[in-house]
């Protein structure tokens, strides 16, 4: 039982009092920001990243994982209570969750969401522990050609699984790659696209870019909706579910966990696909499908579990292969790079403390959500009562200070401003900035590996299809693209986002 030893090491790291405390602070901060209407986990992480700068690498990543789970739970809280999901998968949570809240069962909905998430988190922690070593061994066999193929797959997957048209996604990827080119070329030390600006020689920093693209543009987007968000007036009572509620949600939680664990590993799938599929499964097998959308507890329990399981297993490709599967994991990779860790299969063997500590703190973060966050629900609810017009300046200030403190550079604040306006323009054009950020982060690695692969193969581009692993990955990429443009699938994709 090798993986039990790994888990023991992980809990040893995660249960040290500093890391426990960091995880707790992360969960609380994550919920605090994530509960704000319209702010999703990726935005929350981008806004809170600077808080983790001064920490050692392990602690920083543990805190970020805590922030992620807190933000997810905060997002579910907003979705259930005021029907304003901060991320796409929260839309599914709001379907039945908000109906339950309207019927006065908000407390039950919140606690079932937390219980389901904890169960899903437990299962997927074991799943990660069991599968990580194998996957990272596979990853160690990757040369530059295989890496290129894997990165192409990751980018295409994010486009295909994301919202909006495939062509717009491609534009986002290519713009992300262009922005990633800015700076000094690694091989020749030639400055590229710096326009004579000294600060651009090291390239654009990803933190102000992410804060602007996600944080500031989200705020501008939310401002478009007139009215203040102090919609929450009813009191939350009856926090603990009745026995009948638990019994009704036990099997859906189990099914949701299964769906989420499997779908989360797929690159690019993120959590939306998992929660949507789980919701559809419940509706299909239910004897009373007409109750769905009117406050059916299964319609909340299953997607919430799937959501959390997928959130957790989506870390598998990032941790074992160094490959982000969405905005959140892309930000985590950026954070690892800041702390001098190059993400990839070698992390498992070279930094087992970091790897297993992070995996175990994910579980601890979930447990904290249930035992600490849920009783604190009154505080989170009171945040929802703060008028949005007072929150906006606070978030803006937080972003400014955060962007400045990355390098103590005013230039980064200017980048924040530019990225904010650019992100707002993109959202007006129906372009989701996730593929942009993803390709911005992996673009330099992609170029380096591509050039090295061509060098090794003496300039023969056939190298990418001659190696079996690389060929398989590229075929999978091609299959994904073909599937995405098939008319029948396209229609289904649109339905997913309309629901």
């Amino acid at each position, binding site marked *: 039982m090798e993986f039990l030893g790994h888990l023991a090491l992980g809990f040893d790291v995660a249960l040290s009092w500093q890391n426990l405390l960091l995880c707790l602070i992360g969960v609380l901060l994550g919920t605090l920001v994530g509960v704000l209407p319209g702010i999703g986990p990726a935005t929350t992480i981008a806004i809170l990243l600077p808080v983790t700068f001064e920490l050692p690498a392990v602690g920083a990543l543990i805190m970020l994982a805590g922030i992620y789970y807190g933000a997810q739970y905060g997002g579910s809280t907003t979705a259930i209570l005021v029907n304003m999901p901060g991320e796409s998968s929260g839309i599914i949570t709001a379907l039945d969750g908000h109906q339950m809240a309207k019927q006065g069962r908000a407390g039950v909905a919140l606690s079932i969401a937390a219980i389901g998430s904890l169960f899903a988190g437990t299962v997927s922690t074991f799943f990660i522990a069991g599968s990580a070593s194998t996957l990272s061994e596979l990853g160690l066999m990757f040369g530059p050609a295989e890496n290129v193929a894997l990165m192409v797959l990751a980018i295409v997957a994010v486009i295909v699984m994301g919202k909006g048209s495939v062509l717009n996604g491609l534009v986002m990827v290519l713009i992300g790659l*262009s922005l990633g*080119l800015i700076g000094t070329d690694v091989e020749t030390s030639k400055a590229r696209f710096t326009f004579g600006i000294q600060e651009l020689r090291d390239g654009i920093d990803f933190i102000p870019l992410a804060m602007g693209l996600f944080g500031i543009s989200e705020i501008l987007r939310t401002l*478009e909706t007139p009215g203040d968000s102090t919609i929450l007036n009813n009191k939350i009572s009856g926090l603990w579910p009745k026995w009948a509620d638990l019994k009704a949600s036990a099997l859906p939680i189990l099914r949701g966990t299964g769906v989420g664990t499997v779908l989360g590993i797929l690159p690019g799938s993120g959590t939306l696909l998992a929660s949507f599929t789980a919701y559809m499964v419940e509706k299909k097998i239910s004897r009373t499908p007409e109750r769905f959308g009117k406050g059916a507890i299964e319609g909340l329990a299953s997607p919430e579990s799937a959501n959390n399981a997928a959130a957790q297993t989506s870390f598998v490709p990032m941790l074992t292969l160094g490959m982000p599967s969405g905005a959140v994991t892309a930000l985590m990779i950026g954070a690892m790079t800041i702390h001098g860790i190059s993400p990839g299969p070698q992390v498992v063997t070279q930094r087992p403390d970091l790897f297993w500590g992070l995996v175990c703190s994910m579980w601890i973060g979930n447990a904290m959500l249930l035992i600490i966050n849920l009783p604190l629900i009154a505080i989170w609810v009171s945040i929802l009562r703060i008028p949005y017009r007072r929150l906006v300046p606070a978030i803006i*200030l937080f972003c400014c*200070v955060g962007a*400045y403190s990355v390098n103590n550079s005013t230039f980064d604040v200017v980048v924040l*401003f530019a990225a*904010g306006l650019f992100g707002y323009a993109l959202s007006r054009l*129906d372009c989701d900035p996730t593929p942009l950020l993803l390709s911005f982060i992996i673009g330099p690695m992609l170029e380096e590996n591509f*050039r090295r692969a061509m060098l090794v193969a003496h300039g023969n581009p056939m190298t990418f299809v001659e190696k079996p692993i690389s060929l398989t990955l590229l075929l999978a990429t091609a299959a994904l693209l073909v599937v995405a443009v098939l008319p029948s699938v396209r229609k289904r994709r649109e339905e997913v986002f309309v629901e």
Partner: protein
Amino acid sequence: MPLNRDVLTAGLATAFALTLLAFGSYLPVGTAVRMGPGFIPRAVAIGLLAVAVLILIKALLARPARADDAAPEAPIHWRGAASISLGVLTFALLIQPIGLLASATATVFFSSLAQQGEGWAERVVLAGSLAAIAGAVFAYGLGLPLPILPNFL
């Protein structure tokens, strides 16, 4: 062709492509074995132009009535964009010369103008208190090396 989203997206892609080509023209492409720093920029630029053309073709083939059945979109929030931009740029301009407390006050004040519904006194109080909180949390709590007070004091 009306100036719709597709046209604007294609225009954005073209602008990026042209920037890459114009400002990257001096970068050597290199050979297939030993690629120069100019290879990938040109490849990305060509990709951008190709996608721009595809988007325009798709827009031409789409039903012309598309604009009608789409739900009307909320107007651009110019007030928010302007005041938040002003707030962020003020911070960039002021943080080093006059420190966190004063620049945070200005930033909060300007970005609070993004929305109506608050009186001037309230905005000033909000700005002052958030600046104080920011000073306490970031400089003392997190120990970030930020200038707090104006450097001439």
